[in-house]
């Protein structure tokens, strides 16, 4: 079924075009992004349940104008054709008065050229099997409650088991002097989390699924319950790893975490503008083994960040960041591209209409290789298979990497021993890690359970993944 566009946004188009016309009389560039994100979050756990709107819900607008030096923006949540004059006054205050006050206080203002846009009129509405709004909340709560009840049949050590399901229906429009864009799509995600306790030792394990799907996602979730409980139990016997450097195999999820933290953040081109990216010095140079090719882009994969246009009205693309080990290019928002004299790649994204657009990742992943997982395990005398992401942190300037991993499964003499270490922190110098990649499996898997921040803020929904990869890394 086709995902419908927000009626509210469609109804505001005329008003927004009028606002663009009014502002265009005094500003050389004017654009407006309108967003209406409507989603629900359903959770059940041992003692109860909750239904709330998704934290991604929003409805509002952001105007960008060229102020004569660079760009000013104003975000607002009220819009009426009767108060457009007041709105224009507010935008004028930001673009003229505030900038002039700062200039008068001897604060330097950077200079940008005026954005030149091609004329584009485009719409894109994705398809899902089951539209969430057409199904009663009772169905979702019953389905996830059944999943939770099933979990408790698998272990007496389970003290809590939560099932979370979230759906987001995204509608956006972008209006400027030359662009008239609209898009609607739905993503859903669902996760399972088991908490187990033996004596005073408490451990947890989680897993989940996500995608550009409707309610049909819940059917896939049910198949994962038993493994989540069993893996949580296994963690009760986990040991602490002896710190050191090991041969490792990263699951597709951990490969995705490495792609994201190691080179995803490092090639966000607003970092190039700020001279925060070491990647600038390595364009067209080897940064990884020749088995490594890496992509990012709204058009690079089908996942939660597969949109038609970004939050600055640039159409999404597929960027080949690393080609057979050689760093080729970065991912860019519109203003960074303007400063650098490059082409924007459709990666200008905002946390919401209230926040600034930055160069951000979308769907980031390593390409598949030719190896089989059993051969990869068989090639290791002493090492670990790493699985399940806890967190990660980027270091674009100095190319450090921190990946917190829930499970390290021991490999000895080419076989998994059944012993588990947990948790594990993987650190290192990004090129050393990527150059050590010696085997790559045949199938790419992409996941999108979490969100990505820039530093500790500006959260956006992203996906990442890859095949299994064999490398060498420092674990602690």
């Amino acid at each position, binding site marked *: 079924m086709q995902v419908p566009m927000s009626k509210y946004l469609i109804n505001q188009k005329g008003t927004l075009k009028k606002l663009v016309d009014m502002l265009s009389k005094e500003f050389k560039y004017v654009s407006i992004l309108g967003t209406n994100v409507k989603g629900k979050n359903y959770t059940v756990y041992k*003692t109860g349940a*909750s239904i709330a709107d998704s934290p991604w819900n929003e409805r509002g607008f952001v105007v960008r104008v060229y102020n004569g030096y660079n760009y000013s923006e104003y975000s607002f949540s009220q819009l009426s054709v009767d108060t457009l004059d007041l709105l224009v006054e507010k935008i004028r205050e930001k673009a003229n008065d505030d900038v002039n006050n700062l200039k008068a206080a001897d604060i330097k203002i950077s200079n940008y050229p005026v954005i030149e846009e091609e004329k584009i009129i485009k719409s894109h509405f994705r398809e899902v099997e089951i539209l969430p709004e057409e199904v009663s909340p009772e169905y979702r709560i019953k389905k996830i409650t059944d999943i939770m009840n099933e979990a408790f049949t698998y272990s007496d050590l389970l003290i809590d088991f939560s099932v979370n399901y979230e759906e987001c229906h995204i509608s956006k429009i972008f209006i400027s002097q030359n662009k008239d864009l609209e898009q609607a799509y739905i993503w859903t995600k669902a996760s399972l989390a088991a908490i187990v306790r033996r004596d005073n030792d408490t451990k947890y394990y989680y897993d989940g699924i996500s995608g550009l799907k409707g309610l049909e996602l819940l059917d896939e979730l049910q198949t994962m319950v038993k493994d989540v409980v069993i893996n949580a139990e296994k963690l009760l016997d986990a040991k602490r790893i002896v710190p050191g450097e090991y041969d490792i195999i990263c699951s597709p999820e951990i490969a995705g975490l490495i792609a994201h933290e190691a080179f995803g953040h490092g090639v966000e081109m607003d970092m190039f503008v700020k001279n925060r990216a070491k990647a600038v010095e390595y364009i067209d140079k080897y940064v990884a083994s020749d088995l490594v090719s890496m992509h990012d882009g709204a058009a690079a994969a089908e996942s939660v960040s597969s949109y038609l246009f970004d939050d600055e009205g640039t159409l999404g693309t597929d960027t080949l960041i690393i080609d057979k080990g050689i760093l080729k290019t970065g991912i860019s928002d519109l203003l960074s591209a303007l400063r650098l004299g490059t082409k924007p790649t459709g990666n200008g994204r905002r946390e919401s209409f209230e926040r600034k657009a930055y160069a951000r990742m979308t769907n980031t992943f390593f390409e598949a290789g030719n190896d089989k997982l059993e051969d990869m395990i068989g090639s290791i005398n002493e090492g670990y298979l790493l699985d399940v992401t806890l967190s990660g*942190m980027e270091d674009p300037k100095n190319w450090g990497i921190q990946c917190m991993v829930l499970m390290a499964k021991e490999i000895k003499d080419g076989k998994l021993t059944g012993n588990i270490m947990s948790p594990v922190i993987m650190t290192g110098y990004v090129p050393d890690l990527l150059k050590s990649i010696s085997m790559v499996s045949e199938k790419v898997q992409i996941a999108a359970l979490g969100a990505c921040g820039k530093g500790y803020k500006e959260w956006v929904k992203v996906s990442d993944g890859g095949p299994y990869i064999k490398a060498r890394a420092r674990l602690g």
Partner: protein
Amino acid sequence: MVEKIRKILLNIDGINGWKINEKTVESNELFFIRKELDMNRGKDVTHISLTLYKDFEENGKKYRGSATISLHPTMDDEEIIKEINDAIFAAGFVKNEYYPLVKPSEGVPPETKTSFSEDSMSNWMTKLTKDVFIADKYDRGWINSAELFLDKVKVRIVNSEGVDVMYETYRGELEFITNWKEDEGEEVELYKDLLFSDYDESLIPESVDEMLKISRDKALARPTPKLDNIPIILTGEPVREFFTYYYEKAAARSVYENWSTAKIGESIQGADVEGDRVNIVLDPHMENSTHSAPYDEDGLILSKVTLYEDGILKRYWGNLRYSHYLDIEPTGIIRNIVVEGGSKSLEEMKEGAYLELISFSDFQVDTITGDFAGEIRLGWYKDGDKLIPVTGGSISGNINEVHKEMYLSKEVQKLNNFIGPYSVKLFNVNIAGVE
């Protein structure tokens, strides 16, 4: 908007209670690359959250279902009515043990004072901008980029029991990156996110200066050596993160859900504690904290409470719902934490060999398991007389295995919503060195 929603609610059947949280934010935002303004932004937005409650009984037991929805200022009556009807229908499938809503209180919370209310936002932005660059005076170190935000926030909480309270607060944020380059070696950078709710003329210049000096030290740092059986000292921001473990273990929700086994009257650090014991107070009115508030999100009036005394858990903290479940007096949700300083001065802590860790990529504490870990961005290794700046590698450990013998510094620090020891000394922590 609140009045409009109230009026609509009066005409809809089947609602056993409701709560409206309205938040209006006026924001000024400046984005700098080096000392140049790269963009300015502003916003005027209103967020309205409505929670609807529906009561029902099963087998003689009372339940309270709920559903929370966002209502946008641009919604018309028809849209709002549809959202409310959908939500109250959904609330009927949420089977939570019954709990009451907050009732109006006659108490008067202390007035929150902030200098930001005494001048225009744009004048403050100019003043704060000047503060940002005061310490940017070194030849080899500089601010790479900075983002400055000042939000004026008005909060109103209204519920069906008659609560109708409001307050105004400010939220300032400065995110900045500092760089340093020595003649030899790589240029390095560090990240800092500073939050504040009142003007303190030394806060920004001192923070920037401190980060520039830490960046300088990082530029001189050598790879962390492989170390065994050496105590570590956490200093600065990681200390705040470390103590979130004790905060979460005392949460009424964590106890009710059985995620925490902490019991009132028992030592959170176990028996036979050899080092310092934790003393923790929650203070909703802490000065210059972006988390200070007179009321929690349910409209419950907040006051200071003691969580731990000499390591003994004195009470749980929580909102009315989870406090009702545990049959305890609710404290409300308080997010300001005060940890008392310990027995050792910084000088005493640094006797003998140690690895002091000042900056991590992202120091993480798992409040369920007690596991903690982080990649080292800057540390100081002292073995004998030599003090060496180090970088790279990581540490990992578990609070349950280290807090029987830990030492807190006498000296305390303030980091937005945290006042507590400047440093914590721990033993038996795994160190994964680089060479």
